[in-house]
């Protein structure tokens, strides 16, 4: 099943080299582009299953490539490579429709996990599975039933909506703004969100101080640990 075709866009040859080798080893088919222009041209002619896109490209930068792709209607999952300190760039990329990001420098496992989550999400959207399981948590989206280690957990409607949103995007980072818009329907304070997340963690996590399920992406948003396959 892992014969997905991935386009790697980065101007640094050594990075393209190890990405090609590392991804090929996982049975992905890897294409390369060294600039934004090259990437856009390639994508016009060749469909791919996922794009790994560096933000700091010479010429047309990564954000612009992303914008043009999404404006052109492409739904291809896109995973961004960014600098660790560039929170603003990450958030903008996610707002522009990127699926996820990894910060440089990153380990191959981390990128692979993001790629898998993005590809899986692509499939999930086509047929949402009714029961989600990750670690001790199980969420039955049809019966609206949440259990931790087999014990039912009572959630307020809003808490449930928040969890449901995270579950349907499990493994993917969701920006504060995205979550606020989905749950509170507009411009609300991130502070609300933080409080709800804390309550959710207290109800769901084994140790709310060191969350294993609902993970914080500092300065960007939250990510739910993906389901095991």
């Amino acid at each position, binding site marked *: 099943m892992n014969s997905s075709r991935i386009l790697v866009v980065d101007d640094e040859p050594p*990075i393209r080299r190890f990405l090609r080798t590392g991804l090929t080893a996982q049975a992905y088919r890897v294409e390369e582009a060294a600039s934004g222009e090259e990437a856009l041209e390639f994508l016009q002619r060749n469909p791919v299953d996922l794009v790994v896109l560096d933000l700091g490209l010479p010429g047309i930068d990564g954000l612009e490539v992303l914008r043009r792709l999404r404006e052109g209607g492409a739904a291809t999952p896109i995973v961004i490579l960014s600098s660790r300190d560039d929170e603003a760039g990450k958030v903008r990329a996610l707002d522009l429709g990127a699926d996820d990001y990894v910060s440089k420098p990153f380990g*191959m496992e981390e990128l692979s996990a993001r790629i898998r989550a993005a590809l899986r999400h692509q499939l999930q959207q086509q047929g949402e599975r009714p029961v989600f399981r990750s670690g001790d948590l199980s969420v039955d989206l049809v019966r609206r039933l949440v259990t931790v280690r087999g014990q039912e957990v009572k959630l307020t409607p809003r808490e449930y909506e928040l969890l449901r949103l995270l579950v349907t995007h499990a493994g993917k980072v969701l920006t504060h703004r995205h979550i606020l818009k989905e749950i509170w329907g507009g411009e609300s304070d991130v502070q609300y969100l933080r409080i709800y997340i804390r309550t959710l963690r207290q109800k769901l996590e084994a140790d709310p101080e060191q969350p294993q399920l609902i993970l914080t992406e500092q300065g960007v948003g939250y990510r739910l640990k993906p389901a095991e396959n």
Partner: protein
Amino acid sequence: MVAEILRRVPDISVHVVPARSGPIDLPRPSRAPQSLPPLRSFANAFGYSILGLAAGLAVRQGLGISNVTLVMLVAVLTSAVTLGLWPSLFACLVSALAYNFFFLPPLYTFTIADPENVITLLVFFLVAVIASNLTARVRTQAVVARDRAATTEDLYLFARKLAGGISLDDLLWATVYQVAHMLKVQVVLLLPEGENLEVRAGYPPEDTLDQGDLAAARWALDQGSAAGRGSDTLPGARRLFLPMRTGRGIVAIIGLHSNREGPLLTPDQRRLLDSLTDQAALAIERLQLAREMDKARVATETEKLRSALFTSISHDLRTPLASILGSVTSLKQYGDKIDAADQDALLATIQDEAERLNHFIANLLDMTRLESGALAPRMDAVDVTDIMGSVLRRTAKLLAGHRIVLALDDDLPLVRVDPVLFEQVMFNLLDNAAKYTPQGSEVTVRGRHEGNMVRISVEDEGEGLPEMDRERVFDKFYRVMAADRKRAGTGLGLSIARGFMEAMGGSIIATNREGRKGAIFILAIPVAK
């Protein structure tokens, strides 16, 4: 109490300033007594009267006595027009007496026989006085109008000067000159600088003020009202100090002084001074605002530069690290699924990138060494050919895609350098050429003996340097086309090269090749004795 203070501390001057009591305004100096015109005017008036008399004597023969008065009136009016009121009144008197003496019988005496002639003489005198009064008033008005026009013209020119793009010093100078010139006084201009008031301009030039004047100026600034000579506050000061204000506050203090006795300014002059200082105050404020804006802009630029620098360093450190970490984790995780050739490629990437990182860190350390002044060159007599050999070995990989031409003269003398530093300089220059010129192009290193220096040049076939970048390439973290992050440079190599060359008593400049495309870096190093 003052006496008590003075008794205890004899070497100070004590100024007693009344606490603010009602509005302190500049006492309006009384109108200056109208000075009499000079004696010469009266002499002239006398002359006109004699001329009138002569003409009168002349016309008496032909036209009769009645016209004589008219002719003599002309003389009085002429005096009034040209000389003013007092000389013309004098002319009236002279003419009346002359008329009596020469024309009214008995002739050649001041007695008048016919009472009718007394009336004639009185009428003549009255007419003369009224006419001369009226005429003199017209003249005064004309003079005032002319003065006013001249003042207006001066004010206009002054305003134009202030509106032009002039520096603060020029502006202050123009102001003191204009005030001194138009009001015939001596002028100083003080600007608040932080806590202090500083004399910034004076006409005639003046650098310092005595304690009493400074105290008055200070008062004028703090209280925003007049102080010093002729005012209610510190009237003992030599000068009168007035605040120059705009809507935002006081921008300067102007100090006036004159050796003349009596009040410093007439009300007219005071009004003129106000309009001059109002204009100047606005202009000073405008310049100060412009300067503040400049400062703010420079701060923003510096901030931008700093953030660009930070981005650059973090990019340069992170990119090799990303490649190394990515390659290592790929090998660790999926090593069994990667074939031998790809494993070798990953290992090569790790090695290359580790070397690149090492190079960058070495550059950063060199830079730190240069900047901290910890660099102590160990000078030695060195053979350039020898050094080039080892540099070319070190750069072989970097320059694999370029053709290297080494053209060192055979008779090159030994040079006096630190061999390690000099090798680094040459390495950085070749590294730079490798990064900024296309693959397959030629890089030429020439060496020539010139006097007591050896001149070494590194010539490439790249795009050359934009005119404005020729010096800036040696700036720390500066890169030509810095926005284009395609170049893997650190922006430190050339800066280090220059630092090292200067530490060794040599020099390095950058320019473009003549007659063809490409940059050329020229080193001059002293020959070993």
